[in-house]
């Protein structure tokens, strides 16, 4: 082996070591969270150890006595799934309208849709909170769902997808006597599945991670989602890290399972938005 090849080999080894070290930095905090949650509270003062002596589930018991954690997990999942489905339905229908139906003022309406995309949540938070109070929806699932029934981002992405479907397909179906609804359901929707997957990933993650809005509109534990429940927990157990980490394990596990099952689609969905 010549010196040049040896150099190349050393470089690729170095590169591999760096990626490996990086992966440890990314994954170890998750392991540390689990370790902390099963370490007896008394031995936390000096920091937990890799191998836990006398592991205990006491922190989980305290956690379940304090907050209805199972219900909070179900809330998070249900709100995320509901808002994802709603955004897929409302978004793909609007996409069809904008891409396939000729009507006056279409560009203006579309521009108005895009304008809502630019307004960040914090501008809306105060008036939306007042609106929910006025509608008597404060502290309900409806309040959690309201701002994410439709997303202009989804409409935008899906419209592009519908436009890339050849119009000849619709025309052939029209000759066969199909109306808009049948063309939409049997031709368009199946052909825009990759874009639907991308929108689904963003809708689900957006709802799952949402914090500011639930923080403002939800008070009772039975309507809390995981981020809000966790933040509340931390307010109560500031120094009891075993309990706080047990709560974190609760909120990491469901999303980790979803991630393991759909990893390819999730990463592909995120990558898809960047190319455009």
């Amino acid at each position: 082996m010549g010196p040049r090849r040896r150099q190349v080999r050393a470089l690729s080894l170095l590169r591999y070591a760096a990626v490996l070290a990086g992966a440890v930095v990314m994954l170890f905090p998750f392991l540390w969270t689990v370790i902390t949650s099963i370490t007896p509270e008394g031995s936390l003062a000096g920091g937990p150890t890799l191998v836990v002596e006398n592991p205990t589930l006491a922190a989980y018991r305290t956690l379940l006595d304090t907050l209805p954690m199972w219900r909070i997990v179900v809330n998070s999942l249900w709100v995320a799934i509901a808002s994802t489905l709603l955004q897929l339905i409302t978004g793909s229908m609007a996409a069809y309208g904008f891409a396939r139906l000729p009507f006056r003022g279409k560009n203006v309406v579309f521009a108005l849709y895009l304008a809502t995309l630019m307004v960040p949540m914090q501008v809306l938070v105060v008036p939306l909170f007042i609106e929910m109070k006025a509608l008597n929806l404060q502290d309900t699932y409806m309040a959690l769902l309201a701002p994410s029934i439709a997303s202009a981002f989804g409409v935008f992405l899906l419209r592009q997808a519908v436009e890339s479907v050849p119009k000849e397909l619709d025309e052939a179906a029209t000759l066969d006597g199909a109306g808009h609804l049948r063309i939409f359901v049997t031709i368009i929707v199946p052909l825009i599945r990759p874009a639907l997957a991308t929108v689904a990933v963003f809708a689900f993650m957006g709802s799952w991670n949402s914090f500011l809005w639930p923080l403002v509109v939800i008070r009772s534990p039975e309507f809390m989602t995981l981020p809000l429940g966790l933040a509340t927990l931390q307010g109560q157990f500031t120094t009891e890290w075993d309990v706080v980490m047990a709560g974190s394990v609760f909120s990491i596990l469901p999303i980790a399972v979803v991630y393991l099952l759909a990893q390819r689609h999730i990463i592909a969905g995120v990558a898809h938005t960047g190319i455009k």
Partner: protein
Amino acid sequence: MTARARWRKAGWVLFFLAPSAVPLVLFTAVPMVSSVWVSLHQWNLISPMKWVGLDNYRTLLTDPGTRTVFLHTLMYCAGYLPLVFAGGLGLALVLNRKLAGRSFFRAAYFLPVVTSWVVVALVWKWLLNPTNGLVNTLLGAVGLPQPGWWTDPNWALPAVILSSAWKDLGFVMVIMLAGLQAIPQDVLEAAWADGANGWQRFWRITLPLLSPSTFFVIVISLINGFQVFDQVYVMTGGGPSGSSQVVVGQIYDLTFRYGRAGEASALSWILFAVILLITAVQIRGQRRWVHYA
């Protein structure tokens, strides 16, 4: 077209657009307009609103506190963006080669992206615990100084930046990886045949051809960066003594702690204007350095 056919056409437009238009009007457009209205009043959410015109804006724009929270937000972006960009690009370059366990690494780096901000902030608050956190234990073991992290006014913002970069590294990596895979292989091969070394190929070919992805990452990161809130609220609550307070944190506190909803709404519009301006400048400037294939 007969009147009947026209009605039918309008019916279809309504059928396809109403499911998205109605919620967008109710839960985005209406609050948006009323937010402007609120920003022109003095209001504590309880007693009747009092018209003050543009006073809220005037107060905020002359208040040194506003400058401080914008400065902290800017510092957050200035720390966060280079970290995730350099890290994400580096990772993408390495993972773009054939490498044993490549899909495992990609999945591992992406895991924090799907974890919620609140969890990330809590886990890192514990890792960066000044007395018995893992990071300070390790720093102490090798004889390095142990910062007070979120308990120290000088270290609170860096602690938030570090944990945020940890979370988003995988996101940038995936975007850059997709960009790298879109670069035509023959261009790189031609450069190689012309005798360009690895360094030249990176600076002259890969990086310019990657510019659309770079542009996307910078625009998105700055939009999100200026709206940073969750991790600050959980990790430091804006403290100690306001040293890590950011704009959205200030909007929240003004509304729900100090009962100054009018000022909070005005501040949210100032933030919106700043984000819009920064994004517009970038979109105008992109012609100079972004090359679309």
